[in-house]
């Protein structure tokens, strides 16, 4: 009668006295969540299996910022190895020595054929590598594809965060579970904290009782689904399928045993949800996001710092204009507007640098493959044929590589500066999808192509 396809649910140990709980001690920061010996063994076995899988990384991080970058100030002056440096990339700080800058990646080969608002169009195309559908992206984004493969063993198949939102998902969201199905991001650090550490402070018996309760609740709803499905029209059954996907994910988050020890941090405090709280809020989100990876609560982290087209005002770095407005600096045509765009983008890139440093200090950077990108190059003309892209993590050396050529690149004089003749041989841009494919392969996703990929990008 009841559908019993939830293996995680059934596998959850049920017998009283079977000690499998992580112990989260009452509300104290700095408390280490211990693991019983048996579970550590299980975690160890899982780790070994991963090591044998041939994947070079275990965690995938997708960090996005909207409204592009002034590419002349973003792109390093030379191609080669060593920490990439430019007016903007110097904002990476010490993380620069871990970062590879990739020039010449593009989505214009897709977007140039489509009539849609350029902000929404480039945002949806950038993470999916295909043309958008009417109500959203045309397919899953690369981070969510990774979540399908990496997401089974951890509490959350992915965590999707954002520093700011927009009502319309076609602008506001970078993560897509399916065609037209976006993943709503968490924007409030307190919500993220309570999601990750809600049972901190509950003792073993309390956790056991809560599990029994959640099991009863989920039994009730899955039995209800079975009853509702009987003789239901097709449209109803499709809705119930969607609901059951949610139920399974909920089970996973409620019943998945931890794979390693974890330290409960202090609860985040004092960040408001408006522009004034942006600096603090995004730092807290990044910190908790990095911790969620380090604690192995999830293996996929999506972080949209600021969505495309939004006018967040960064007063804390001396900018009185909105983000989107600043990105149209040529249109502004005002004195100092390019400097504003540089200052703003430098700040955004510095947020990625901090994230990389955090992953490093947790000792997991060498098991991550992390990217930082925007959906456009120079925001003023909404072009997307020479995107700002950074990569860091497992086996990725620092440096600057040029992967393709583009008209935007030539027009901006960047190619000339880089000695374009040596590498700018073809006018064909390199699809951004090539990088996503390589990142997915790095975490062991068994695919040969992604979106409009024409090959992979060597990240070694």
């Amino acid at each position, binding site marked *: 009668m009841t559908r019993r396809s939830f293996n995680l649910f059934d596998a959850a140990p049920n017998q009283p006295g079977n000690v499998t709980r992580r112990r989260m001690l009452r509300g104290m920061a700095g408390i280490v969540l211990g693991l019983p010996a048996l579970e550590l063994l299980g975690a160890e076995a899982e780790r070994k299996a991963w090591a044998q899988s041939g994947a070079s990384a275990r965690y995938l991080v997708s960090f996005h910022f909207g409204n592009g970058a002034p590419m002349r100030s973003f792109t390093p002056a030379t191609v080669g190895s060593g920490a990439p440096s430019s007016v903007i990339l110097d904002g990476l700080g010490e993380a620069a020595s871990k970062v590879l800058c990739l020039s010449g990646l593009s989505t214009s080969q897709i*977007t140039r054929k489509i*009539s*849609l*608002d*350029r902000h929404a*169009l480039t945002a949806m195309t950038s993470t999916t590598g295909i043309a958008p559908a009417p*109500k*959203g992206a045309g397919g899953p984004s690369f981070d969510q594809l990774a979540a399908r493969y990496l997401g089974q063993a951890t509490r959350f*198949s992915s965590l*999707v965060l954002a520093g700011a*939102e927009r*009502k*319309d*998902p*076609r602008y506001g*969201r970078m993560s897509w*579970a399916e065609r037209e199905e*976006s993943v*709503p991001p968490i*924007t409030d650090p307190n*919500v993220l904290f*309570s*999601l990750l550490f809600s049972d901190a402070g509950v003792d073993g018996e*309390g956790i056991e*009782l*809560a599990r*029994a*309760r959640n099991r*009863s*609740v989920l039994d*009730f*709803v899955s*039995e*209800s689904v079975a*009853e*509702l499905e009987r003789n*239901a*029209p*097709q*449209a*109803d059954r*499709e*809705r119930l399928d*969607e*609901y059951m*996907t*949610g*139920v399974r*994910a*909920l089970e996973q988050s409620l019943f998945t045993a931890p794979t390693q020890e974890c330290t409960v941090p202090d609860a985040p405090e004092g960040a408001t949800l408006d522009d004034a709280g942006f600096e603090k809020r995004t730092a807290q989100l990044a910190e908790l996001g990095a911790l969620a990876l380090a604690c192995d609560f999830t293996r996929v982290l999506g972080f949209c710092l600021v969505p495309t087209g939004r*006018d967040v005002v960064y007063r804390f770095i001396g900018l*009185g204009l*909105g983000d*989107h*407005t600043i990105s149209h600096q040529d*249109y*502004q*045509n005002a004195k100092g507007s390019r400097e504003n765009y540089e200052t703003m983008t430098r700040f955004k890139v510095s947020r990625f640098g901090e994230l990389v440093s955090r992953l490093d200090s947790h000792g997991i950077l060498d098991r991550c493959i992390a990217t930082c990108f925007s959906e456009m190059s120079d925001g*003023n*003309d909404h072009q997307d044929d020479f995107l700002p892209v950074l990569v860091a993590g497992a086996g990725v050396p620092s440096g600057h590589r040029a992967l393709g050529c583009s008209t935007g690149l030539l027009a901006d004089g960047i190619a000339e500066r880089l000695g374009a003749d040596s590498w700018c041989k073809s006018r064909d841009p390199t699809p951004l999808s090539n990088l996503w494919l390589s990142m997915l392969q790095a975490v062991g996703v068994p695919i040969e192509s992604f979106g409009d990929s024409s090959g992979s990008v060597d990240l070694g």
Partner: protein
Amino acid sequence: VLSLVERSLGAVLLFVSGFSAVSACTAAPPAEPSSPACPLSSELVKPGRLSVREYLNTLRDVLGVDASDLVPFLAKDAITATFSNSAPDLGLGPEQLRGFHLVAQKVAARFFGGDPPPSKLPCIVASKDDVECREQIVETLALRLFRRPPTKAERARLLTLANDETTDVSGVELALQAMLIAPQFLLQFERAHPDAGHTDAECAEVERLDGFAIATRLALGLTETTPDDELLAAAEAGELDSAEGVASWAKELSSRTLAREARKSFAGQWLGVDELADVELDPEVHAGFTSELREAAGHELLRLSQDYIHGDARVLDLLTADHAWASPLLGEVYGVEISGSFPERIDFPDRGDRGGLFTTSAFAMLTAKFDSVSPVRRGKYIREVILCDAPPPPPPGVPMPAADAKDNPSNVLEQHLDDPSCSSCHEYLDPIGLGLERYDGVGRLRSEYPNGDPVPERGTVVGMDSGEFEGGRELGALLATSEQAARCFTLKASSWVLRRSLEDDDPTLDRLLPVFEDSGTLDDLVNALVVSDAFLYRRREPAE
């Protein structure tokens, strides 16, 4: 590529049929007329999900629990439609369910942990063996939350939970948690009436909904909350099986305070007031802009809209409103003195450049850019909100004008109209905005641009007969009497009450338009809608 002549020809043809005047710039074909006998759109409608507001209101009305502080735990809905209650579009995947689960636990704890009001809780569980009270609680709550009596199997399962005292919460609390994340509660599954045929035998492909489904549509569509006991009893008694019964219940519901609240919620989303909170403007360009003024302007437009969406008032008279509700801050913008500290009604007897939606401060702010007034955005607002025929966004590869819009936007507009790749759409937008240049970015009157150039006087609604106007009041008068605006409002209001985004060729609109054109009131439109086929019937699933 169409020539300009072909394009304008397309435009003329399209003006004749319904909306889509402006989709002339993409030359969409006019809609096929649908079969007049059973005017239901041909699509099967996906079951709806409660919107966040409907969910919160339901918790308030059924449990007496205020859960508004828990909203941050709920995933934000992806909204591509005008309204947040576009129920079939609302997702219920992993992130949403996680949020609903978290809130369910907290709400159940608040209900049983606090002092549940006796009106909401029929009895107090006296002892371990008090099975009778547990049954009563389950029965009462399930009826309201599932918006129908629970089935035998549901009742049995809920009672098992309600008698389970082996978890960290009481049995009844456990049962409530389960109900609060159940698909029967969060989703809206509708059943066909046992005697399901259409009164017109030719309409074999549609079936009538049962009383509980109609009660749910009525309560959610008119009061943004779950049906109350009386309405559910009426459904049980068969009162909603006839169009007359539905009409009389709709009138009853519309007279309630809850309906006023729901209409306010509608107006806020229809006019975009809800988006005002995100508007940031540069006070150095838009003199006087503060968050206080923004808030006052939002309140004003909501308050003003109330004067036109109830009773005998004609909705589209909002476009030519003869008064404002000005707080002291807004008084400064409108050039009138407000003595007290509360908003006051200000009448505009001489009806110069003041009066109506397009002269409000909220309209000016909603359509302003961070650092400039944008005639393009003003035109776009009017096409989207009032005429339902916004042109598509710029095609790929269109360079943005390089000129500076801040001092005097007319040079940007000239570029728009000179370049045929821009003008095919911008001719529908910019000329409207030009006639509103006399209002600055917060709605204050001005006669010249920052650089001293005089602002233009005259605007044109391209595609409309005698579409010329000067200022917001004349524009309001022009649009308030247009068939296109009436049809557009019929579409918006119907989408809100039906809780799904209607297509602009939906046959329901053809039925309702004459009613609305004749009376002009939202009440009459709603009363006609709730007895229409779109409300009482659904398309039958094709046999396999």
